[in-house]
């Protein structure tokens, strides 16, 4: 049922989307570049949040899917002349299959959340070695993707504005998918699994199937966003795309925003990527590492102060304020 | 010796205990009776410091226990035999007993107390090298009581020691408790098995939905029509 509250909410979201879109369009190129990067990381965080947040399985192996998405279409384009769209699709399928294999290995036995994180971290490191050792995928030096005039059929764009539009639409689609999964039966099952695996199993939820399915979706989506990122970067550097550091960053963005919520990864990456870029712009030349040290420090502080992430923190503050002002009213929340 | 003065306690804003007052005197054998979910375990946890009362005072030998951490309460002489035994499963019986005397003030007297426990429950002496997790329920209960005794309690708090035990073991354990009481130990026995509890304790309290509804010596409790109906099925 569409209550007044929901209408307001939908309108608010729509207004924000339009505002971001319009603002993005008029930003100077430097800031627009940051905006595109932020959008891409929002996309990656949203993709990770499907398995890491909704299902509560902290995967640190997603760098492998991002790397496949970035490197495989580039390799296919440069070495075989395969259309980038087709390359993206192939990479997504490869990532999905790999995601199925990894999650099957890890989830076959219920070993707990920490175990999954540790095992997938080993997969990330293994993937890193394999990728930098595979000449076909660019080895340790990666690829340069030359950019020409805009050509949608070949997934080529010339200006930052054009990339902004592409990234923005991809992110909207990713958030849409994420919201849809969240409210679907699968999302409900996943939350049940996250909260209590025994109880979830007891009511007849197939734990393995749910986890593998969501891992496959998450892997494919990560791969697609990785492809867009590669196109935008131009230089497809395995030290960026295949390093476990990229996934650690994404987990942190999501953790700061609020793991397991639809908007947590959006808020987290949307705030932290620009912050990181600004810090780097102002402090990066002064003392290498300072901006990342501050960054790490802030993350630890936020987790200590708002353990559920910013979205939950803000929600509870709002609730507390509401409670303060409406104590006399005896309405029941919807 | 121990006195609870209008203790309130609960979790997440839900009150489990409201206005509970009771006392255990020197050398008393007191029982606290109640059904499941009456709040018995919360009460026991308040005494041992695992749960902090939201209101009220717990006076033991003249000082207030509220806010004192569990390990300090133990070394002050209140030792607990928790519900479900709660032994250290992959330690041997001997190691479990040694853990009972881990408090700094109890360590020097461990050898003699260990000997005392082995005399009290010879079965434990036989099984001293066996892992606690592999003992039978009754043996585990003996080990749990033994562990508490090695701490050198002046007040022994037992949370449902008869739960899930065969009548033979129940008998053995309560005989041991009777001996301990006769030797001067104060006992607070928390039970839902009324017939057993009232056969051994001198007086008792009945806890229902977090409140003390009845108190008195065991004859009074046994003859109370409400108790007879609700707990003894008579």
């Amino acid at each position, binding site marked *: 049922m569409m209550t007044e509250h929901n209408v307001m909410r939908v309108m608010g979201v729509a207004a924000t989307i339009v505002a971001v879109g319009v603002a993005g369009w008029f930003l100077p190129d430097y800031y627009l570049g940051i905006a595109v990067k932020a959008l891409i990381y929002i996309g990656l965080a949203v993709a990770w949040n499907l398995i890491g947040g909704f299902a*509560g399985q902290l995967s640190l192996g997603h760098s492998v899917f991002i790397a496949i998405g970035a490197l495989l279409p580039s390799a296919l384009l440069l070495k075989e002349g395969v259309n980038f769209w087709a390359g993206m699709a192939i990479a997504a399928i490869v990532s999905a299959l790999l995601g199925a294999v990894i999650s099957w290995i890890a989830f076959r036995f219920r070993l707990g959340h920490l175990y999954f994180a540790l095992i997938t971290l080993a997969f990330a490191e293994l993937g890193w070695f394999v990728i930098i050792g595979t000449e076909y995928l660019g080895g340790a030096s990666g690829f340069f993707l030359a950019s020409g005039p805009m050509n949608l059929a070949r997934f080529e764009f010339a200006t930052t504005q054009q990339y902004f539009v592409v990234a923005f639409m991809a992110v909207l689609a990713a958030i849409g998918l994420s919201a849809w999964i969240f409210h679907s039966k699968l999302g409900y099952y996943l939350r049940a699994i996250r909260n209590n695996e025994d109880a979830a199993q007891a009511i007849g939820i197939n734990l393995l199937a749910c986890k593998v399915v969501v891992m496959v979706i998450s892997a494919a989506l990560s791969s697609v966003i990785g492809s867009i990122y590669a196109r935008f970067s131009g230089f497809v550097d395995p030290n960026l795309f295949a390093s476990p550091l990229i996934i650690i960053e994404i987990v942190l963005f999501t953790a700061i925003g609020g793991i397991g919520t639809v908007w947590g990864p959006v808020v987290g990456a949307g705030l932290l990527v620009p912050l990181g870029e600004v810090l780097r712009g102002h402090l990066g030349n002064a003392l290498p590492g300072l901006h990342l040290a501050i960054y790490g420090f802030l993350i630890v502080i936020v987790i200590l102060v708002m353990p559920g992430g910013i979205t939950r923190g803000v929600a509870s503050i709002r609730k507390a304020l509401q409670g303060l002002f409406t104590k006399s009213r005896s309405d029941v929340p919807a | 010796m121990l006195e609870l003065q209008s203790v309130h306690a609960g979790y997440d804003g839900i009150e489990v205990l409201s206005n509970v007052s009771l006392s255990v005197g020197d050398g008393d054998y007191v029982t606290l009776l109640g059904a499941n979910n009456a709040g018995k375990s919360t009460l026991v946890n308040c005494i041992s410091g*695992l749960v902090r009362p939201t209101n009220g005072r717990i006076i033991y030998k003249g000082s207030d226990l509220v806010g004192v951490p569990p390990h300090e309460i133990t070394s002050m002489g209140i030792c607990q035999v928790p519900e479900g035994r709660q032994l250290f499963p992959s330690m041997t019986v001997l190691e479990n007993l*040694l853990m009972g005397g881990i408090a700094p003030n109890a360590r020097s007297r461990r050898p003699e107390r260990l000997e005392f426990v082995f005399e009290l429950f010879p079965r434990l002496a036989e099984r001293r090298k066996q892992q606690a997790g592999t003992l039978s329920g009754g043996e585990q209960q003996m080990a749990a009581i033994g562990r508490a005794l090695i701490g050198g309690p002046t007040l022994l708090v037992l949370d449902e020691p008869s739960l899930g035990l065969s009548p033979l073991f129940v008998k053995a354990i309560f005989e041991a408790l009777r001996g301990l009481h006769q030797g001067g130990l104060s006992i607070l026995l928390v039970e839902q098995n009324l017939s057993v509890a009232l056969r051994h304790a001198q007086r008792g309290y009945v806890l229902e939905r977090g409140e003390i509804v009845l108190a008195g010596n065991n004859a009074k409790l046994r003859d109370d029509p409400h108790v007879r109906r609700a707990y003894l099925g008579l």
Partner: protein
Amino acid sequence: MDLSILPQTIAQGVLVGSTYGLIGLSMGLMYSVSGAISLAQGHMVSMSMYLVLSLYTGLQLDPYVSVAITLPVLALAGAALYWFLIRPLSGNAIMVFQASLGLMFLIENVLLMIYGGQFHQVPSIVSNRFITFGDAMIMKLPLLIGFGVTGALAGILFVTLEYTDYGRSMRAVHQNERSAALVGVNVQKVRLWVFAMSGAVIAIAGVLLVPSTPLHPAEGLKYTLVGLMPLVLAGMSNFFGILLSGVIIGLAEAIGTVYISGAIGLSLPYIIFILILIFRPHGLFKGH
């Protein structure tokens, strides 16, 4: 394949692996009493190694001497980790895990700020000493020292756990925290001490690695990983299993580097790790 260097390779793997086991042990110690893991342990190893570097450049202290300083410092750092991170998050493993990812960034980049991004080397008087066994094996002295120290630590740990009140308290907190508190264990204090111990083990691992390993701020993640794999293989809190699994990882690394070229050789430890988990998902030391 040159089999004549096999004994040498195996010995090398065993020796290096024993240090990896120590890193895993430091994680196992913290896990056993708190149920949480900090992924920044490898960065703590880096921290201790750079501390050794500073003590060498500032005071000309040999690494094996400077452990007298790094050990208490890292023990303090371990205790601080418990007090300021794990305790406020009340041991929530997922939160601690996330916070430790932030800690990784913090430590790595503070090291980068202080020491810069180039590789450093700290020599020890024993760095270039070799011991020969028969005619087939020549071992670096630092590695032998590392192995000896690990063995000695394992012995001390065993005796502590089995025969002292302190060790029994540790096991008690691991097996049943509530009961531990009820029999009179100061659970908070035990945790603090064990985290300090975990830091001390890190300091020892750092000192043992220094003479044979160049230092770089970005190496922290690698140390985390080589510690993590033995930890998982041993089922998280079997301390001797962790040390033994460290040797397995060290062996895989040595054999991979010597006998298998390229990416597969470098990633052999990870391949072995994943293979073991496929066939023995509960680790090497549990019968299932």
